[in-house]
């Protein structure tokens, strides 16, 4: 009985073999490193960011505990807070809202985010940094403001100048260069204006029902109750409020971070899979070249299991080397993140080496490499020792049953690969086990479909190119025909390189097309009648004069649409309390006060889908209510249901008469609940308006409105879209940055595939040279090969990207899709050039090969 091959001997043989093929394996290692690098980079940054959020939790909240409320606290809630203050807890109140600021230097007022603070107390932690330097408590008074630098630029003013806010003059005392809780605040559109509470009162901007975000910040003192007690007390008193304390990261930021990390991790996984596909093809080519050695080893008595053991070790070694290189590369990727998101996150997490991310990256790298090399490794068992004696004999093609039987191992391997990838994808998902399982399954299904479609298209395109070049009545020049013929070179793996490059191109172009499609949809000129200017926070007293003022303006393209709303909260539906409905995600908004309206007649553009609108002339026995389809579905309401509401201390009971549908572009489209006329009389009503104005007349309307009604905020949709575009661009930039790794991996695989055929290429170069070809001619043939491969990958990627973007835009984003040939064309050309560069990178040296050296060796 012979001893088993020891692991150390197997390692020695594996190392010896790998060393002999070091150039070829370098590409494999780089391909794995790219995927692992992008993954560890994303996750490393995410962990560092998370760690920073936790470490700096107090500073980022400017408090020990933050309480965000969606309505002004009632008497009982105020009493609860006062009780805590008496026990030593300190409190400060922050109000954030939107308004208009004007200066004398530019005619148009600017939309700003206002933050009203008590400068003597705020912030409890961290510091508001001003330029010129100074303490906020000392310099900010009731008649001054501190502003962000962009406001100075837009209003063409300087520190010391005066601006008008709500019609009142305020002197700019400095530029806010940093504020600790900017990230956990809200309504961060437009430049910042920091003001004192007294200053805000002076503007007259805040009236009951005004759109504002209110936060209370708390600080514990040595004698005060502990954080848990304070939190519990507030939770009980403010069940709808959003509470965060220093022991956790801010829930909104964390949620966003987790989603972004999962998404970018999965994109990185795609890059890794592209790399792993390359490893698989490289390993297959390697094993094909090693067929003789394997057959000889088998002749010499090595068992299949032992040979597989050698190559498994080699694969693990490659995965390990790629993983280690990837970890180093990941730190570069991690460092690239802060500048990418600098616009919205001014904080820079400290770069530090995180072993858990590195181990995760390493494990994922080795596992993915091993999974994808399973098929060629299992193929070792099919190599018969006799191959060295009868290689020249053509193999008889077996029947399909036999082939299916032979493929059994490959099918099993395929199943294992998919399960493995599913597990990895699930592991990368940050969240519950259920979410992980869902992500894993979805990722695998999407991957299988994409790979099958890509492989099918790659096969079809390659075949079409060959048929076209062969059958075309006009004979193509020789370099083109030879270049194309080279794509079918044995062991070229053109299809695999095509799929790898195609995935990268498809991904990157899809992101670009979706981003462009979304922005085009938003910027598309609005349908006639749709408002492009919105007026916020109009009081009852201002309603009629403002409508008259707007009507009198030039460039008005329709009557202003004004809706009066009241903040009201659902208490129960058919006797069931709202809290018992177990609302999820976006549905939770119904637990808070919503803006509701009243109307006598059915508003224009409203379609009743169930029930009937009430007869406005007949007296109603009880208030009637029409609700939107979506709200009805979430709240399980139907015509005949009874809903109880609470608004400004008054209880309203109303019967659901109708379920309606309205497009979101009209003012009523924003209102989910419309009561019968008279129901809301006597309650504090705040009006919102919308009007269609010729774009050139918008500035004049803003000026005129601000002159007479300085507390009314006039929002030009075009300005808001600009802000939205900046955000979308920023997100797209990050996603594109990561998706480029998939292209990079594709390039490396192409180079690796070219490197894998190096010996065949050398032989061909030599034959061609012997037959009289110049180096230029040979270079032409190779360039055609690489360019055709790149162009086909580009074509495939752009075809699929177009299809995917059309699907995403039409189905999910409800936007129009128009095929634009330019980006697709550009993509094809660029991919062709990149492929050419990659191909030459791997083969430029063979051009200078001396023929005789090679011929003698044959």
């Amino acid at each position, binding site marked *: 009985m012979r001893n088993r091959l020891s692991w150390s001997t197997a390692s020695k043989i594996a190392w010896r073999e790998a060393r002999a093929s070091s150039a070829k394996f370098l590409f494999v290692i780089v391909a794995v490193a790219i995927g692992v690098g992008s993954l560890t980079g994303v996750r490393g940054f995410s962990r560092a960011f998370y760690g920073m959020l936790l470490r700096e939790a107090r500073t980022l909240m400017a408090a020990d505990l933050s309480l965000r409320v969606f309505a002004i606290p009632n008497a009982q809630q105020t009493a609860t807070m006062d009780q805590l203050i008496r026990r030593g807890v300190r409190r400060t109140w922050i109000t954030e809202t939107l308004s208009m600021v004007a200066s004398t230097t530019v005619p148009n007022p600017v939309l700003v985010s206002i933050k009203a603070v008590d400068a003597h107390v705020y912030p409890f932690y961290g510091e508001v940094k001003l330029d010129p330097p100074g303490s906020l408590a000392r310099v900010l008074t009731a008649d001054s403001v501190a502003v962000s630098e962009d406001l100075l630029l837009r209003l063409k003013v300087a520190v010391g100048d005066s601006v008008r806010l709500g019609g009142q003059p305020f002197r700019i005392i400095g530029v806010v260069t940093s504020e600790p809780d900017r990230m956990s605040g809200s309504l961060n559109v437009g430049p910042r204006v920091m003001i004192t509470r007294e200053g805000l009162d002076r503007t007259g901007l805040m009236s009951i029902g005004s759109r504002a975000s209110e936060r209370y910040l708390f600080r514990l003192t040595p004698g005060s109750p502990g954080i848990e007690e304070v939190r519990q007390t507030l939770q009980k008193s403010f069940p709808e409020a959003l509470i965060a304390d220093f022991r956790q990261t801010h829930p909104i930021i964390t949620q966003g971070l987790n989603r972004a990390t999962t998404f970018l991790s999965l994109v990185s996984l795609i890059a890794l899979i592209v790399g792993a596909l390359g490893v698989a093809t490289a390993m297959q080519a390697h094993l094909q070249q090693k067929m003789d050695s394997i057959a000889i080893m088998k002749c010499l008595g090595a068992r299949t299991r032992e040979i597989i053991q050698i190559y498994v070790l080699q694969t693990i070694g490659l995965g390990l080397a790629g993983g280690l290189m990837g970890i180093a590369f990941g730190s570069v990727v991690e460092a690239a993140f802060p500048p990418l998101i600098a616009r919205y996150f001014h904080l820079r997490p400290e770069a530090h080496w995180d072993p858990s991310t590195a181990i995760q990256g390493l494990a994922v790298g080795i596992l993915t490499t091993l999974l994808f090399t399973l098929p060629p490794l299992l193929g070792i068992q099919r190599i018969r020792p006799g191959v060295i004696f009868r290689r020249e004999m053509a193999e008889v093609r077996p029947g399909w049953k036999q082939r299916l039987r032979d493929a059994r191992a490959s099918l099993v391997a395929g199943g294992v690969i998919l399960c493995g990838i599913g597990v990895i994808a699930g592991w990368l998902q940050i969240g519950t086990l259920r979410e992980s399982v869902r992500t894993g399954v979805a990722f695998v299904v999407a991957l299988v479909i994409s790979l099958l479609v890509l492989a099918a298209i790659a096969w079809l395109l390659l075949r079409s190119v060959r048929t076209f070049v062969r059958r075309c009545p006009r004979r193509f020049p020789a370099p083109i025909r030879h270049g194309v013929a080279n794509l079918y070179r044995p062991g070229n793996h053109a299809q695999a390189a095509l799929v790898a490059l195609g995935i990268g191109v498809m991904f990157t172009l899809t992101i670009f097309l979706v981003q462009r499609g979304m922005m085009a949809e938003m910027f598309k000129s609005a349908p006639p009648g749709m408002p492009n200017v919105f007026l916020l926070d109009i009081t009852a007293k201002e309603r009629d004069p403002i409508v008259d003022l707007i009507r009198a303006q030039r460039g008005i393209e329709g009557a202003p649409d004004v809706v009066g709303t009241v903040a009201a909260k659902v208490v129960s539906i058919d006797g069931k309390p709202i809290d018992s409905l177990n609302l999820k995600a976006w549905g939770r908004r119904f637990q808070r006060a919503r803006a509701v309206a009243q109307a006598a007649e059915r508003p224009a553009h409203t379609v009743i889908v169930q029930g009937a609108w009430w007869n406005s002339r007949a007296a109603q026995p009880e208030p009637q209510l029409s609700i939107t389809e979506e709200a009805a579905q979430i709240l399980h309401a139907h015509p005949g249901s009874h809903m109880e509401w609470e608004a400004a201390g008054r209880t309203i009971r109303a019967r659901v008469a109708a379920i309606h549908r309205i497009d979101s572009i009209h003012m009523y489209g924003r209102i989910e609940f419309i009561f019968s006329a008279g129901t809301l009389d006597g309650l504090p009503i705040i009006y919102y308006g919308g009007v269609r104005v010729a774009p050139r007349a918008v500035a004049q309307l803003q000026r005129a409105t601000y002159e007479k009604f300085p507390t009314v905020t006039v929002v030009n949709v075009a300005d808001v879209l600009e802000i939205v575009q900046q955000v979308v661009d920023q997100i797209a930039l990050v996603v594109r940055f990561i998706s480029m790794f998939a292209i990079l991996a594709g390039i490396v695989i192409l180079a690796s595939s070219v490197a894998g055929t190096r010996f065949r290429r050398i032989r061909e170069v030599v034959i061609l040279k012997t037959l*009289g070809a110049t180096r230029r*001619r040979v270079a032409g043939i190779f360039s055609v090969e690489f360019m055709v491969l790149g162009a086909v990958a580009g074509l495939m990627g752009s075809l699929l990207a177009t299809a995917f973007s059309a699907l995403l835009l039409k189905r999910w984003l409800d936007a129009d899709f128009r095929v634009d040939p330019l980006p697709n064309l550009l993509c094809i050309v660029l991919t062709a050039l990149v492929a050419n560069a990659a191909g030459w990178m791997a083969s430029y040296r063979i051009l200078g090969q001396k023929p005789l050296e090679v*011929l003698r060796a044959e």
Partner: protein
Amino acid sequence: MIQVSGLTKTIATPTHRVDILKGIDLEIPRGQFAAIMGPSGSGKSTLLGLLAGLDSPTSGHIVLDGEDITGLEEDELALLRGRKIGFVFQSYHLIPTLTAEENVLLPLELSGHAADGVERARELLQSVGLLDRRDHYPVQLSGGEQQRVALARAFVVRPPILLADEPTGNLDTANGQVVLELLITLNRREGTTLVLVTHDQQVSEQADRRITLRDGRVVLDA
């Protein structure tokens, strides 16, 4: 036609120097069939490679068809080969991605005369008995068939000189005989100068002249 004078070739490695050719002087007139013989390592293939301009000599001169090729650049040599030299290898060296006909056409394409070459390629494939297999790829042909395609390829540009390096070395006796007969027939028909390297006494007996090399020198020329 072929004039070789004072030809030497030395290969230097970091540890030692090998003199492969130690001063060869030869003259092969137009239309002659010369067989170069000699044991392994005698320098036969190196001499043939130098005649084809596939490598440069350490010293000496080679004049082909009145043109001294010794100082030519790599690409100039390639162009010269395309015009004047046909080559037949022991291992056939067909391009695996091209069909038999495309392989035969290749030298014409490289010299820019492909347009009127299809006729010529088919005529040669007919001569070597493979016209009906012109669309087959090398992998679909036997060794003997591949060598016949290589013969057709070598003659396609009507080169004045044909160099053959053990053209029957990889073939069995029957196939070897067929290939050799074809080579001689085509040589006579096309009027080329044929220089053939061989180990095989029987093959050399069919040549007009036999040049024997040993240790890098001509030891017999008859």
